């Protein structure tokens, strides 16, 4: 069965400190640490584009597990900040990596729900077409669209990219997914030249919808929440993670939080967490994933470690 085999990541070394912005945004250090949960935001070089970040994530993957690019059957990029509107960024990545002409390439336009959505899409695509190896990239550098004077967004988002190797030698396979959309709320997060976020609307959406999505999925799979060993929730902010944890009454020790040193990296946030744990998970362990945000959109999944 196709599943997650390995994950490569790229986080730019260049960082911007939120602690230098306390006076500018009239916030204190406690608010930055305990509510936002971002001390430093990763920043790509201004000239770098999404495809460049993807290639660097691939370099990391290649160090972890040697990749024969001639064996790659599909190349998919999740982004809403493509290099260009035309062509699709996956084509540029395809060319940069020297992938074979038989390799299918396409982009998926989703934000923070994108990784979990894309796992389902790409695994199904591969299985339907007899493909053996696929690369699923996430790269959504918001630094190009952030208004640095906007308190609602300037303290949160960081740049990064990831690539997930999907193949039949998988460590993690899916048990089930849940998806949803609330298109009537699309203005909650919108790029109209610069990113605008209605923080209260996005918070209200997340606090109500994500617990329902996860509960619905667990019920569908006939699983108790305590049977899930680790939760990898989209790292929107610490306040969001704490709120979901509290509302679902999850064991805090099981909920991964790690965005202090790079920020909210949109569709890259979940694979950035998973990459640290994928090799150390024990066979049989279950993990929960949930991505939520732009759209408004959400997707949740339960995966299990198999080998």
């Amino acid at each position, binding site marked *: 069965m196709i599943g997650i085999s390995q994950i490569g990541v790229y986080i730019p070394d260049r960082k911007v400190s939120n602690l230098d912005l306390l006076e500018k945004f009239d916030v204190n250090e406690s608010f930055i640490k305990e*509510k936002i949960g971002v001390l430093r935001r990763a920043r790509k070089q201004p000239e770098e584009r999404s495809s460049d970040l993807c290639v660097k994530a691939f370099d990391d993957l290649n160090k972890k597990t040697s990749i024969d690019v001639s064996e790659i059957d599909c190349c998919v990029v999740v982004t809403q900040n493509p290099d260009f509107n035309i062509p699709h960024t996956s084509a540029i990545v395809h060319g940069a990596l020297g992938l074979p002409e038989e390799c299918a390439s396409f982009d998926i336009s989703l934000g923070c729900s994108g990784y979990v959505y894309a796992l389902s899409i790409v695994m199904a695509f591969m299985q339907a077409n007899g493909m053996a190896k696929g690369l699923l990239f996430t790269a959504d550098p918001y630094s190009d669209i952030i208004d640095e004077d906007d308190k609602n967004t300037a303290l949160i988002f960081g740049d990064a990219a990831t690539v997930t190797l999907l193949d039949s030698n998988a460590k993690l396979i899916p048990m089930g997914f849940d998806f949803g959309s609330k298109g009537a709320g699309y203005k909650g997060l919108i790029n109209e030249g610069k990113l605008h976020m209605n*923080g*209260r*609307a996005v*918070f209200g959406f997340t*606090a109500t919808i994500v617990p329902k999505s996860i509960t619905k999925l667990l019920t569908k799979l006939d699983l108790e929440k305590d049977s899930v060993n680790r939760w990898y929730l989209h790292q929107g*902010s610490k*306040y969001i993670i704490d*709120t979901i944890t*509290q509302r679902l009454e999850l064991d805090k020790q099981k909920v991964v939080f790690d965005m202090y040193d790079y920020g909210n990296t949109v569709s890259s946030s979940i694979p950035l967490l998973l990459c640290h744990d994928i090799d150390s998970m024990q066979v049989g362990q279950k993990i929960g994933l949930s991505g939520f945000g732009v759209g408004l959109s959400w997707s949740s999944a339960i995966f299990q470690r198999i080998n």
Partner: protein
Amino acid sequence: MDSISVKQVLEVIKKAKVINNVDELIVDVLLSEQGVDSLDLSGILLSVDEAFGVDIPDEDIDGLQTINDIVDYVNAKA
């Protein structure tokens, strides 16, 4: 719906575990002066919305700066 009381609103906030010091809140003092930041206020208003079925549009937020403001608002909308 019967009028809601300050006590009911405080109980809702406490039950939702939005902030820790609910019992110490002074009902006619600005929440922002009592350590309640903008994110906490979003959490408080969400819990009030869910408990009393009152939709609170963004344009009304500026008028909801104390517990008394919230109680009066919910009773006016009920």
